[in-house]
C-alpha cells in the first residue's frame, strides 16, 4: 500500500485567495494511499521545507505531492528536500494549482474544484513513479563561441583567462563584428577600434583560444557537456600557417569590388582583409569575384606572394570537434530601408525572405544605391566618420564627396512601427544619433544638424547628459516625424512636422541619416534551428527566463550573449558575454555532469525487434542489441537505449507496438493513472 503525503501550499494569499486549500487537503486525505496531508502558508519557505522533510521521515512516505506553483519553479526544491529526507527525488510530483488555477480563475468554488482534481490526478500518478537514479556523465571541457564580435571576444577572453580552451567561429574573414565598424562610442566618445582591436590581438595571442575565421557552423549534435560541432572552414585560398600578413597580395591585386565592411561605400580588392587591423591578418580570395576563378586569368597574387601561400585549389574543409558548451553571439544587422518615402523600396518587411542568397541580397534596396544616394543609415555614417573609413574620417556625402552643410538625422526608422517595421524600440538609436550630431559638428564647423525624433530614450549611465551635450553643441532637435524626402537639385528636401510647435517643417538637407532598426541577422531563424534553440517572433533568441535566466537559451549547455538575444548597446553586450562565460565556467567547474534519469528503457523480454523506435529516435540513441543464450548463440535482437544520447522525448514509447520501451518519468502507467483520476468536476 502506498504511503503518500500531500502538501497543499497557500502561497501566502496567492493560492488561498481563489482556492480553499483546507478543502483540497481534506479531499486529498480521503484518497486511497494518502496517509498524511498538510495545508501550509509557504511550502517553499525554510520552515515549510523542514515540515516536508519531517513528514517524510515521520510517516515513512513513499510518494509526495506538493500542490503549489508550477513545477518549473519549485520541482527541484522539493525533489532536493525529499532526497535530503531519504526519499527518492523522483517520487515527488507537483500539482500546478497556482499558475494554472488560482491565478487564472477568480471563482473560489471553481478554483477549489479544479485544484482538487489536479491534486487527485497527481496522487494517482505518483503511485506509479519509480525511484530513479541520476546518471553521471563525463564532459568535454571546451567551449565553442559562435560569432567573433565584441560579445564573442569578451566571452572567449573571460573563459580562456579562467583556463578553458575556446574556439571562436566567425563567418567573416576577421573578428570584430559590427563594433569594428563604429567610429566612436557613446557616451564617452572614445574610439571604438582603439578599445576593440587590443582585445582582438589578445584573443589572437592567447594560447587557449583557437580562431576559426571565415568558417560557419553546419551542424550541432549532442547535448550539454558533450556537443559535437561540424564546422565548415570555407576555402580562403590562402594557406593560414604560412601567411605572414605582409599585404603584398592585396596591394598588387588589380580587381576591386564593393567592401561589405565599409557598407559598400568604397571598393576593396578581390583578395582582401576586411579592415587594416583585421585579426587574423590572413587575407581571403573572394571567389565569386576573382577572375582567376571565373575565367582562369590573372593570378598576380600567387606571383607576388613571398612565402608562396596562395593556393587556388584549396577546398572547403569540414571539421568535427567536441565541445561541452556553446555561446551564441551572432549579433545583429540593420533593417533594410523599406520606406519608399525615405528613398528605399516599399517592399513590406514580411515579404523580404528571411534567408537570402547572395543574389537576392544584392537586389535588396540599399540606400546608397537607391533613388537618393545621400540617404544613408547609421552604420554607413559610422564608416564616413571613422578615421579608417572610406573618407579618412572627414564627413563627405557619398554622391559627390562634398562636405554636407546641413544634415538631417531621422530617429526611429522602422523601430516602434508595427505596420512596416518592428514593434520594439531599438534602444541605441537615440544615443548614436546624438553621437552622430556631435561627430558631424566636430568635423564640419559651419554645419547644422537637425534631428527628427519621436521620444528621447536615454536611460543609462551618463546617457541623458550626453543628449544634453549634443543639443548644447548645436544639434537642433525637432519632435515629429518626416513624411517624405524629395530630390531638389543636388539637395534633399525633408518634409516633416514639428509636433511641439504644431507646424510643418521643410529642410533642405545635403545628407540624411536614418537610424534604422536593429534586427537579428537575416539567417538567425535558420541558425536557431541548426542549434535547436528557441527564438521570438522577430528572430531574436529566447532566454530561458526573462528576468532570472537572461543568458541561458532554451537548450541546456547553449548560452546567449549580445544582440542576437535582443537589442543592446556595447556595455550591455559585454556584460552579457561575461555572464555567459561565467555560466560556462560554472558548468565546467564540476568533475562530472549529473543528468536527469528521464530517459527511455527497454523491456528486453517483450521487445519484438520491429525497430520502429530506431526509426523515430531523433538522436540515434537506440540501436539493436544481441541477446545471447548461455552458449553464446544469438537468441534474438532487441532495442537498446544509450542513456547518454537519449533526451527523453518519448517518441519511441508512443510508437512501440508491444509497449516494451518506455520513457521513465512519463510511462504509460503514470499517464493512464493520471487520466483515470480525471473527474473534471466543475464545482
Amino acid at each position, binding site marked *: 500500500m502506498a504511503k503518500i503525503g500531500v502538501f497543499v501550499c497557500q502561497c501566502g494569499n496567492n493560492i488561498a485567495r481563489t482556492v480553499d486549500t483546507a478543502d483540497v487537503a481534506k479531499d486529498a486525505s480521503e484518497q486511497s494511499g494518502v496517509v498524511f496531508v498538510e495545508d501550509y502558508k509557504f511550502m517553499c519557505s525554510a520552515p515549510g521545507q523542514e515540515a516536508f522533510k519531517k513528514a517524510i521521515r515521520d510517516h515513512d512516505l513513499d510518494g509526495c505531492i506538493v500542490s503549489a506553483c*508550477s*513545477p*518549473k519553479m519549485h520541482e527541484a526544491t522539493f525533489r532536493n528536500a525529499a532526497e535530503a529526507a531519504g526519499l527518492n527525488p523522483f517520487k515527488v510530483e507537483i500539482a*500546478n494549482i*497556482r*499558475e*494554472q*488555477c488560482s*491565478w*487564472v*480563475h*477568480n*471563482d*473560489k*468554488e*471553481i*478554483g477549489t474544484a*479544479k485544484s482538487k*482534481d*489536479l491534486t487527485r*490526478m497527481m496522487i494517482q500518478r505518483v503511485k506509479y513513479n519509480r525511484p530513479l537514479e541520476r546518471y553521471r556523465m563525463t564532459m568535454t571541457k571546451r567551449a565553442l563561441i559562435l560569432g567573433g564580435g565584441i560579445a564573442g571576444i569578451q566571452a572567449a577572453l573571460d573563459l580562456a583567462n579562467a583556463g578553458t580552451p575556446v574556439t571562436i567561429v566567425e563567418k567573416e574573414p576577421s573578428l570584430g563584428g559590427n563594433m569594428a565598424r563604429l567610429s566612436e562610442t557613446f557616451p564617452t566618445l572614445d574610439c571604438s577600434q582603439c578599445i576593440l582591436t587590443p582585445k582582438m590581438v589578445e584573443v589572437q595571442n592567447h594560447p587557449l583560444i583557437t580562431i576559426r575565421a571565415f568558417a560557419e557552423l553546419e551542424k550541432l549534435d549532442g547535448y550539454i557537456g558533450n556537443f559535437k560541432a561540424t564546422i565548415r572552414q570555407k576555402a580562403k585560398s590562402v594557406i593560414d600557417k604560412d601567411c605572414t600578413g605582409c599585404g603584398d597580395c592585396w596591394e598588387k591585386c588589380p580587381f576591386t569590388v564593393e567592401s561589405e565592411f565599409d557598407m559598400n561605400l568604397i571598393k576593396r580588392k578581390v583578395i582582401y582583409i576586411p579592415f587594416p587591423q583585421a585579426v587574423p591578418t590572413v587575407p581571403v580570395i573572394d571567389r565569386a569575384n576573382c577572375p582567376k576563378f571565373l575565367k582562369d586569368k590573372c593570378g598576380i597574387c600567387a606571383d607576388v606572394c613571398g612565402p608562396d601561400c596562395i593556393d587556388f585549389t584549396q577546398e572547403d574543409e569540414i571539421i568535427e570537434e567536441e565541445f561541452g558548451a556553446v555561446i551564441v553571439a551572432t549579433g545583429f544587422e540593420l533593417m533594410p530601408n523599406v520606406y519608399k518615402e525615405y528613398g528605399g523600396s516599399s517592399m513590406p518587411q514580411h515579404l523580404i525572405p528571411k534567408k537570402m542568397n547572395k543574389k537576392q541580397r544584392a537586389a535588396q534596396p540599399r540606400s546608397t544605391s537607391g533613388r537618393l544616394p545621400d540617404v544613408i543609415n547609421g552604420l554607413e555614417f559610422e564608416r564616413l566618420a571613422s578615421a579608417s573609413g572610406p573618407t579618412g574620417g572627414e564627413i563627405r556625402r557619398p554622391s559627390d564627396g562634398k562636405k554636407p552643410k546641413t544634415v538631417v538625422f531621422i530617429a526611429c526608422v522602422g523601430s516602434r512601427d508595427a505596420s512596416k517595421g518592428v514593434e520594439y524600440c531599438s534602444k541605441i538609436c537615440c544615443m548614436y544619433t546624438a553621437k552622430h550630431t556631435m561627430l558631424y559638428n566636430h568635423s564640419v564647423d559651419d554645419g547644422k544638424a537637425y534631428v527628427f525624433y519621436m521620444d528621447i530614450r536615454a536611460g543609462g549611465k551618463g546617457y541623458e547628459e550626453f543628449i544634453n551635450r549634443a543639443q548644447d553643441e548645436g544639434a537642433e532637435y525637432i519632435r515629429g516625424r518626416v513624411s517624405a524626402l524629395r530630390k531638389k537639385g543636388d539637395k534633399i528636401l525633408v518634409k516633416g512636422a514639428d509636433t511641439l510647435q504644431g507646424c510643418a517643417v521643410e529642410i533642405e538637407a545635403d545628407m540624411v541619416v536614418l537610424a534604422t532598426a536593429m534586427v537579428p541577422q537575416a539567417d538567425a531563424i535558420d541558425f536557431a*534551428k541548426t542549434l*535547436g534553440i*528557441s527564438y*521570438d*517572433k522577430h528572430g531574436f533568441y*529566447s532566454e530561458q527566463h526573462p528576468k532570472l535566466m537572461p543568458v541561458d537559451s*532554451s*537548450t541546456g549547455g547553449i548560452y546567449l550573449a549580445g544582440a542576437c538575444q535582443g537589442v543592446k548597446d556595447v556595455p550591455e553586450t559585454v556584460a552579457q558575454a561575461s555572464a555567459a562565460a561565467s555560466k560556462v565556467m560554472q558548468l565546467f567547474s564540476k568533475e562530472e555532469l549529473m543528468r536527469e534519469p*528521464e530517459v527511455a528503457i527497454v523491456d528486453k523480454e517483450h521487445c519484438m525487434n520491429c525497430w520502429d523506435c530506431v526509426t*523515430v529516435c*531523433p*538522436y540515434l540513441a537506440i540501436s539493436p542489441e544481441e541477446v545471447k543464450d548461455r552458449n553464446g548463440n544469438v537468441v534474438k535482437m532487441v532495442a537498446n537505449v544509450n542513456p547518454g544520447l537519449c*533526451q*527523453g*522525448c*518519448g*517518441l519511441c*514509447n*508512443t*510508437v512501440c507496438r508491444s509497449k516494451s520501451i518506455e*520513457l521513465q518519468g*512519463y510511462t*504509460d502507467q503514470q*499517464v*493512464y493513472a*493520471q*487520466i*483515470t483520476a*480525471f*473527474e*473534471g468536476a*466543475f*464545482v
Partner: protein
Amino acid sequence: MSKGIVRHDFEPKIMGFVCKWCTYSGADLAGTSRMDYSPHVRMVRLPCSGRIDPQFVIKAFEQGADGVIISGCHPGDCHYNEGNYYARRRNLAFRNLMEFNGIDIKRLEFSWISAAEAIKFTQIIDKFTNQVRDLGPNEGYRALLDPYASRLVKSSEESAA
C-alpha cells in the same frame, strides 16, 4: 462567494495533453500574467506532443471527457527536432478513425501554442470550451463503449415492470 464565472446548464469536462516546453509554459505564462480563461481544462504535462499516444485520448473520452485538447510546439520549433511532426501525422490519421467511429471530431482540438503565446492559449481554451459546451455531453462515446449495456438495462427494467 462565486463571482465572475457564469454557470451554464452544462459544463464540459476537458482534458489537455500538452508539451512541457511550449504549451505548458505558455499556460504558466498566462498564469503569471493573470489572464482569465475557462476553468474546465485539466492538463497532463508530457515531454513532447510526440509522446501523446492516441490511446491517451481514447482513455480520456472513456473517463468522461467531453473534449480533448492536444497542443505542441509550432512546426520547426520542436525541442526534440521532429516530435511535433509525428504528433501532427498521428492526429490526422487518428481524426479519421474517430470520425469513422462516430465521434464528433470537433471534440478533439489540435493546436500549436508556443511558450510565449499566453494570449493564444487562453483564446484557444475559451473557444474550445464554448465549442464543446455547444456540442453537449459526449453521450455518443458513452453509448459506443458498450452498445448492449443500455439494451440490457432496459430489458431488466421492462421485466421488473
